[in-house]
Each structure stands twice: as C-alpha cells, then as structure tokens.
C-alpha cells in the first residue's frame, strides 16, 4: 500500500490527486487545485506543485512524510499569444458631416440654409436662410437673445449648430421651432458660408433625410454623379437621431480598409501571404490551404508581427530550444470590432471599426522536465517527504483521456476537449487505445479579449462579464437579472451600481462602466464564446476525427477551466449534436467535474 499523488502542471492551474494504491486497486483520497507558478514546464512550477500536493493530502489523515511517489505529467510548455489589428478606418474630410448623435439635441425637423457664424448674425438680411454656428463658451441666454433678435429682424433661421450642450435650453427660449445639434466640440471648424442641412428626429426615432442619398440630393440639389459621391455620408448617418451635413467642395466620408500588415503562413509545400486586413474568413481560408501549417510570421512593426515574434522568443527562452527552430503551431483569426474615434470628426464621433483578433500558439516537445522533477523532489524532501520519489508520468494526452474515462457514461472512442486559457486541445482515444492529439490556438483568453474590445472595457471587467450572469440595478433595493427575474435586497446597494448593468460575480456586484443594455452585453459575451470555442471545437475535432468525419466520434468530454463556464458547454454540445455526438462537461471520478483528469489519469496509470 503506497500513498501517491498525481500532479498536473497546467498553463494556469496545477492540480493534484492523492490516492492509496493497494493490491485491490486505488482508493482516492482528495484533490487540490492552485494557480500554476511560473511558465508550465519550468522549475518555477515547484511552489505551485508543493501547494497542490498539500491541498490534495489535506482531507486525508495522512501527511507529507507518508508520501511515497509523485507522478508528474510531461508538462511541455505551451506559449500562447494574442494580438488585435484594426483593419478599417473612418475619415471625414473638409468637416463635411457631424454624426456624433448627442443625447440632448433640440427642436425637430429638417433645416437647410447657409452656415453663418454667431458673431456675424447681425449682418444677415431678412429672408436669408441661415444655419447659425455658435462657438463654445457663449452663454445660452445670450445665444437665445441674439437668435430671437435675428428672427425678429426677419432672418430666416433654419437650424443651429452649437459647441456647448445647450440645444434644449436654446430651443426652449427661441420663438421658432428649428432643429439644433449641440455638443460639437470642434464647432470652430464647421465650414462657414456653405449650404448645410441640420436634421433632428423626434425622441426615439432616427433621421430620414440626411441618411438617404436621395434625401441629400434633394436638399443640396445634386445630380447623379454628385449623389454617388455623397452616398457614403448618408450611410454613415443611418440609425441616429440627429446630424448635420455641410455641402463642401469635395468633402466626403470614407470608411476604408487600412493596411494591417501581411501574415505569412508556411505549409509543407507552399507559403501563402495574406493581408490581415482581408479579415478572419480570408485568413482562415488561407490557413486551410497550407494546412498542416509549418510556421507563421507577421510583418515587423504590426501588432500581429510583434506578437508572433515574441511568442517564439518566449518559447526559445523557456525551453532552451534555438530560436530558429521554434515554430508557430496554430493560429485562429476572429473578426471583431473596436470603437475608435473618427479622424476629422468635429464632435468626438466614435465608429465601430472592423478588427481582426489573432491567437497563436507555440508548442514544443522539449522541456526541462527532468530538472522540474528533480526540483520537486528536492522541495518535497526538504518539507518532510523523506522517502518521496518523483516520476515523470506518461504522455499528457493519454493521462487526460484516462482521467476523462472515469466520467460515468463514457467509453472509447472518446475525444477529450480541453478548453483552457491559451489553447484548446483535443485528444482522441480510439477503440484500440491509441491516442492522437491536436492543439489549436484560441481559448478563454481570446474570449475575454473579444469581450473587452467590443464593449470597450478593461480586461479584468471583461473576465468578470465572461464568467457570470448580468443584472441591472433598477432601484437601490432590487436588481433585474438577465433572465428577467428580480432579486431584492434588504440594505441599499452601493452608490456605484446606481442604474448600472452589473455582473453577478461570486463575491460582489461588479458595475460595468458602459452605456450598453444588458441584452447587448449578453449578446457580445455569447458570440465571443461562440466565435472561439464552437469554432475551435469543430476545428480540433475535424482534425482529429477518424477519416476527418465527425460522425465517427461517439463521445466528447469537455475539460479545463473554460468547461466550467456557464454557457460554453451547451454552445458546443448544440453545435456537435447534428453529428450525433454526445457531448458534455466531464465529471472526473464522478465527483471532480471537468477538473483533475490528468492528475487522476497519472495515478490510474500506475495502479
């Protein structure tokens, strides 16, 4: 009878499984889970290993001195990297349009006239159709008085553009009803002496004329060629409540692709170059053409290029392999978008620009595992496990499938899908017992990054959003959860959650500092999980399935941190159902959920 502990050093977590091995079999005692210390597969892992071993032994009555063997996995380092490249850019020239959609415009309707500076209003003649442009800093009472005076003189005031947030104040004080757009920070750059149109829709509605190419044609009396030239302005102004268009000589808005750097994908027989700017679909299609990929590199000076280079350098450092020998094992490109300020905008307009997120992964089969085993042995002996022997266990994928097969209801042929932080790994254990593995880039960290980018929040907030459901504080005493139900509180909620969307995190309510609705944030969260994990589940399974036919796979067991997610397992199961695949979150040893598979497998393989 010997007391053993199986230890799995992962990228993010180190898990341990304590057991007594007797003649009759294995008696499992306890498990432990701690954050991995240092990069997986390096001697820095020792602290985490010690903590995990202690945790696994805690529930039993046995302690370190009784420990005889520790089985560690062949923890080969995996370095993952993540970068994002913005691939479109919106540019307004000649300040020809204003489309920032301020929250409190004034008046309503469409007004067309010639732009006149506030200071020159006195010089306007009666009957002149005027759009007055008012600088920042002039008091609303002064503005209203001057506009009323001009109106009384007979000036045909048709609309106003203000620098201050004063549209409603002015509209409430002047004797006519005109559309007023305000909060135009750079109002001093509005071209003067040109025909302009101001349109404000009723509350809750959107503009109809300036967002229609033919509406612009009607307003500015354009011919067909001029209409064609101005149609991007109409498209840029759809879906908002107010806008201003100034008929400048050659002003336009362009939503153009920006050069985002070339990606070079090397296959066995050919190399493909593709501009990141072509988007995720094109990049993944290029990847498919060179699969199996031998290496990848990006253009110097780009985010993607820098990331790929640094991922290789990291691996060279950590594994001791020559930099020239390090190869990118897999890439995943995902289309996303990022809010960016529009160049040439007069009011801080923000557009959702297209972007491409790229995850990359480097693996190696080399690793200083012997040194790690030695260091573990020294540490444990120092701590009292005088007899302990540290043995490097079998191939990680074999251990994972062995552990996964302790999930009730499973049998070979089985695929284990390990949904981690940096990569998604699949291991197939076929009927004969043979194991094959596949590793693809893109996992939990990429999901978090997409959420952060698309909502415009920091990564720690995005991680919270990923992991827990949402709610909105409807009063200080109740939250409305994303499923529509209500949760009441005895004591008032803290001031910072007032009217905010919050994440129902395990410990606290985390307010999200954005204007989006619960449903919008939920949608971003779910599609991020879909675009990474459903895509990668299918990618990995297609590579590993016998004859590349998913129908040959009977059972898929989900393991890893991201298998704890409250949505990811069902998204994957739904995607795999049409192939007749039984897919679900693992339940290692009928009790551990998706955790401890490798650690348990290590123990089982020695019993």
């Amino acid at each position, binding site marked *: 009878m010997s007391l053993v502990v199986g230890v799995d050093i992962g990228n993010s977590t180190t898990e341990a499984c304590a057991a007594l091995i007797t003649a009759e079999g294995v008696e499992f005692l306890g498990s432990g889970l701690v954050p991995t210390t240092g990069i997986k597969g390096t001697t820095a892992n020792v602290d985490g290993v010690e903590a995990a071993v202690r945790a696994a032994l805690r529930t039993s009555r046995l302690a370190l001195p009784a420990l005889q063997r520790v089985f560690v996995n062949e923890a080969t380092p995996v370095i993952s990297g993540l970068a994002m490249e913005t691939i479109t850019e919106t540019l307004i020239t000649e300040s020809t349009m204003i489309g920032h959609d301020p929250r409190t415009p004034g008046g309503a309707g469409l007004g067309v006239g010639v732009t006149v500076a506030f200071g020159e209003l006195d010089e306007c003649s009666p009957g002149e159709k005027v759009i007055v442009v008012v600088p920042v800093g002039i008091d609303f009472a002064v503005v209203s008085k001057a506009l009323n005076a001009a109106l009384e003189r007979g000036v045909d005031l048709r609309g106003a553009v203000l620098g201050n947030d004063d549209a409603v104040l002015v509209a409430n004080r002047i004797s006519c009803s005109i559309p007023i757009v305000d909060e135009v920070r750079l109002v001093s750059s509005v071209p003067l002496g040109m025909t302009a149109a101001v349109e404000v829709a009723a509350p809750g509605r959107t503009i109809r004329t300036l967002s229609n190419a033919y509406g612009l044609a009607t307003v500015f009396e354009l011919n067909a060629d001029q209409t064609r030239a101005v149609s991007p302005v109409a498209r840029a102004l759809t879906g908002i409540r107010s806008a201003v268009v100034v008929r400048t000589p050659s002003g336009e808005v362009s939503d153009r692709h920006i050069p985002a750097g070339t990606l070079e994908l090397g296959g066995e027989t050919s190399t493909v170059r593709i501009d990141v700017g072509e988007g995720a679909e094109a990049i993944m299609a290029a990847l498919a053409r060179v699969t199996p990929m031998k290496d990848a590199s990006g253009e110097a000076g780009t985010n993607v290029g820098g990331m790929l280079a640094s991922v290789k350098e990291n691996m060279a450092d950590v594994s001791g392999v020559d930099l020239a020998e390090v190869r990118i094992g897999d890439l995943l490109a995902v289309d996303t978008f990022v809010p960016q300020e529009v160049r040439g905008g007069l009011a801080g307009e923000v557009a959702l620009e297209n972007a491409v997120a790229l995850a990359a992964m480097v693996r190696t089969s080399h690793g200083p595992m012997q040194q790690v085993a030695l260091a573990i042995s020294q540490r444990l002996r120092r701590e009292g496990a005088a007899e302990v022997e540290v043995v490097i266990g079998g191939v990680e994928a074999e251990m994972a499938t062995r552990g996964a097969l302790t999930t009730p209801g499973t049998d070979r042929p089985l695929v284990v899908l390990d949904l981690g932080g940096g990569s998604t790994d699949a291991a197939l254990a076929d009927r004969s017992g043979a194991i094959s593995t596949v590793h693809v880039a893109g996992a939990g960290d990429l999901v978090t990054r997409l959420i952060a980018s698309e909502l415009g929040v920091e990564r720690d907030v995005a991680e919270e959003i990923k992991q827990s459901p949402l709610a909105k504080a409807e009063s200080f*005493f109740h939250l409305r959860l994303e499923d529509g139900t209500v949760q009441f509180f005895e004591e*008032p909620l803290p001031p910072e959650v007032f009217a905010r969307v919050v994440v129902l995190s395990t410990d606290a309510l985390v307010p999200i500092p954005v204007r989006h609705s619960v449903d919008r944030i939920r949608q971003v969260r779910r599609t991020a999980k879909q675009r990474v994990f459903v895509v990668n589940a299918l990618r990995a399974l297609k590579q590993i399935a016998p004859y590349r036919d998913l129908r040959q796979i009977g059972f898929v067991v989900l393991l890893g941190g991201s298998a704890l997610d409250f949505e990811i397992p069902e998204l994957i199961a739904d995607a795999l159902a049409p192939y007749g695949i039984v897919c679900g979150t693992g339940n290692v040893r009928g009790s551990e959920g998706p955790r401890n598979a490798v650690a348990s497998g290590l123990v089982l393989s020695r019993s």
Partner: protein
Amino acid sequence: MNVLELREIGRAEKGARPDEVVLALSPGFATFFTKTIVDVPHSEVVRQILAGIEEQGVQARVIQVKARADLAAMAHTAARLSGSGIGIGVLARGTSMIHQKDLPRLSSLELFPQSPLMTPEVFRAIGRNAAQYAKGESPQPVPTLNDQMARPRWQAKAALLHLKECELLVKGAPPVEVEPVLTA
C-alpha cells in the same frame, strides 16, 4: 450681474412626478451670502444647475432648508422630497452633493467637498448628472479636480463661512419651496 431672490411659495412637499430633481439650498444661500467662497455669484450657481437639469428634459424644484447646514442632511431631504428620488444640496460656500432617497444619509451619489474648486461649469455638470440619474441613466461622475493647495489656502475662510451659516439656523423650521427669481 444678476441678483437672485428666493421667493417662498410654501412648505416643501413630496413630488409626484418622476421627472423632477429637487435642489436644496442652505439657510444662508442668496440671503445672507450672495456668492461662493471663490466669488461665483449665487445667481450663477442656481442658473447653471437649473440649466443642466433643463437641458436633460427634466423638471426642477428648488427648496431652501432652514434648520440644517449639514450638506448630507439637506441633499437627502431634497432626494426624499423628489418624485425621482434624486436631490442636490448646495451650501452657500459652494460645497455640493447629489443624493438619492434610498441611500444611507451619510452616503451620496456624487460628492463635491472642495468648495474652492466649484466653477460654473461644475455646477452645470451637477445639474446634468442629477437629471440623468433621475432618468435612470448612469452618467460618468463629474470629474473632480483635487487641489492639494486648496485646503490650507481656503481653510480659514471656509470655516468662517460655515460658522456664519450655522448662526442662521432656525431650529425645527421645515424646508420651504422657493421660486428662484433672477433680476439683472
């Protein structure tokens, strides 16, 4: 330069409509004092706060508190009288607070404790943010500068103004609703 007169309308009552913010002014406001610690006229303070509220399409009611010179108590009283549950409190020297009826009295939605830093733009922003809270939105809190020199430089004057305001208290007098009248 405008003069601000607070014409008493009657006892301050709880409002029914949810689209209102109540602004509570301290006992010395526009009566004994006519400007803040850094000489911003009280007429401008009220004008800017009301403008911030009006621009958001929300109504405002103004009350004057007689029995308290405690900012949190005033602001919380305003919040409890307000149909939206949102209230603003302003002391004669300029210190301000945005409060909500369900919060503990010593808490607040936004607090502006450094009276020397209160400019007309800040008062406008206070009105705007209070109105947005009343509409169930969650605005970015008004950025508050932190001037380490403000404290020592103005401390004595602030203390004097506070003492004076306390002398004006009328024990037990209920808050009154006022109509702010600006005359040039």
